[in-house]
């Protein structure tokens, strides 16, 4: 007790460091994370101003310019910097517009699986016993089926579209959030402050949502960022298999699906959309790694 008192005293004496500033201090130590963050910002800017940045409409077909190579290659034109695809659409414009779909997928899937996962996890932690067992076995079932396969089957049931692909991916990611929430909520429930809150007369909902939940959020946020990048990747894979975004949507994965038959004739139709996926996913993963290190006090102290 004496030690904690001293520590508190010291903290009071030192000029208060804003938590955000402290977070940035640890986050910026990881160079990769900073590169990732700036790339993510660039992608967000690209998505928000796609209609200004993109030289052409992403679905306009220029019938006189089919399969035009990129500008620097022989036969290419500066009018179509990254070339055109088999129906004469500008690849650069399609990639710029595609960033909107990828960000949207990441955002919606993370939000959906995070919020549903928290709700189900809290219910499992709050009502132990049969309900908990049923929930956790259901999560085991989802985990037993390889992620992409389950997503494919769910999309097959719902019908192929980008919206249904997002729902399917969110379902596939659900168990991670449920397990994380349940485990940390059970841990928190055994602590004194929760008992105090309970004694003070907090109801079940108030106890779980207001008292327990804020203390479980750290790892959940990290998981959500990492889920963001996996969601972009999985949605692109579904699009590639024809079970995600439908033509002529300029989604990166479905762009690759359209390009498959031309791989040996027109390398640029295949290369650039894939590169866009790789850069976006890598950026989010780098950022997620940095976020985890900065939010995890155990790693920080060492």
């Amino acid at each position, binding site marked *: 007790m004496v030690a904690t008192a001293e520590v508190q005293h010291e903290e009071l004496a030192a000029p208060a460091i804003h938590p955000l500033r402290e977070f940035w201090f640890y986050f910026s130590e990881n160079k990769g994370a900073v590169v990732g963050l700036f790339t993510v910002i660039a992608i967000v800017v690209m998505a928000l101003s796609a209609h200004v940045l993109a030289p052409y409409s992403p679905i306009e077909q220029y019938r006189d310019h089919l399969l035009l190579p990129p500008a620097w290659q022989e036969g290419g034109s500066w009018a179509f910097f990254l070339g055109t695809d088999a129906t004469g659409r500008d690849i650069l414009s399609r990639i710029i517009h595609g960033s909107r779909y990828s960000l949207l997928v990441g955002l919606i899937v993370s939000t959906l699986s995070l919020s549903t996962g928290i709700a189900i996890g809290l219910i499992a932690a709050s009502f132990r016993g049969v309900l908990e067992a049923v929930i956790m076995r259901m999560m085991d079932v989802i985990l037993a089926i*390889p992620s992409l396969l389950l997503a494919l089957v769910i999309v097959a049931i719902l019908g192929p579209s980008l919206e249904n692909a997002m729902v399917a991916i969110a379902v596939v990611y659900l168990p991670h959030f449920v397990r994380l929430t349940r485990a940390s909520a059970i841990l928190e429930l055994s602590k004194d402050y929760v008992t105090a809150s309970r004694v003070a007369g907090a109801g079940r909902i108030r106890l779980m949502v207001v008292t327990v939940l804020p203390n479980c959020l750290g790892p959940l946020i990290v998981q959500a960022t990492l889920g963001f990048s996996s969601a972009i990747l999985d949605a692109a894979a579904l699009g590639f298999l024809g079970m995600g975004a439908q033509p002529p949507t300029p989604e990166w994965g479905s762009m690759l699906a359209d390009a498959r038959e031309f791989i040996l004739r027109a390398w640029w139709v295949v290369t650039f959309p*894939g590169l866009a996926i790789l850069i976006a996913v890598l950026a989010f993963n780098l950022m997620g790694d940095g976020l985890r290190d900065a939010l995890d006090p155990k790693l920080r102290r060492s």
Partner: protein
Amino acid sequence: MVRFLLNRLLMLVPTFMGVTLASFAFIRLIPGDPVELLVGERGIDPARHAQLLHDLGFDRPLWEQYLGFLGNVLSGDLGKSIVTKQPVLDEFLTLFPATIELSVCALIIALVIGLPAGIVAGVRRGSAFDHSVMTVSLTGYSMPIFWSGLMLIILFSGILQWTPVSGRISALFWVEPVTGFMLIDSLLSDEKGSFASAASHLVLPSIVLATIPLAVIARQTRSAMLEVLSEDYVRTARAKGLSPFRVIGLHALRNALIPVVTVIGLQVGVLLAGAILTETIFSWPGVGKWLVDSIFRRDYPSVQSGLLLIASMVMLVNLFVDLLYGLINPRIRHAR
């Protein structure tokens, strides 16, 4: 050990029941009724429709249907494909060796490169080698493999013309399927050059499929190594004057590999999911491609049973890894 085994087996039962229930439910959630799927677009009069529904048993209460389905599954009857009219299990078993061959090769590549890379990166923490391993593995982890596969085809099959684009073996050879594994069968056959052909067909798909497991294994081995190297007993071993090779190889590695075994086991699901993409790109005749084709052909009995078989496989591998974990780590076994 026997109790440990029984315990784990018992825990599998509810999950297995859940998977059967899920795959039972999937086929009933699909829009349209099974008879219309069976007869296709020809159309059918209502009396015949009702008769067929009755013959197939779809007019019985749901719980009765489920029990019937469960009974069939447990006795090994997984139904027939709507498209080929063949038993699903037979189709699955014909194609499965191709997937196993591909996955095993991918896993070998991932282990042979990933383990040493992770160990050295962990031992030389902060070195240029460590940074490159971390960068490369994060890139591999972020890789859309359906794209990297296409890029490899452009490079090696298109520009360099080193490897074939698709399939398991050149059409010039006919190899008697003995084991179902093309590499072994081609060695057993008399055809000259068939092994080289099979191997050259296998190279690109295995590299593509190995990408993500390789990245995961390298990263996990590195972090497990880092954790172990900071333990007291490693310092003691060093203080005793043991050679660095002995300290790392004998003391550190043994304990570092325990969590890595679990991670390797988890890669089986990743490999099976990756096989769906890899087999589609390289026209590899395995279960992944078969499942995707079945989904597109609306061949729901195949999808349903394929799902059940693959999920059971994943569960069994997880069980095996759990047991292995208990075997190499006595602390787990005795705690139970």
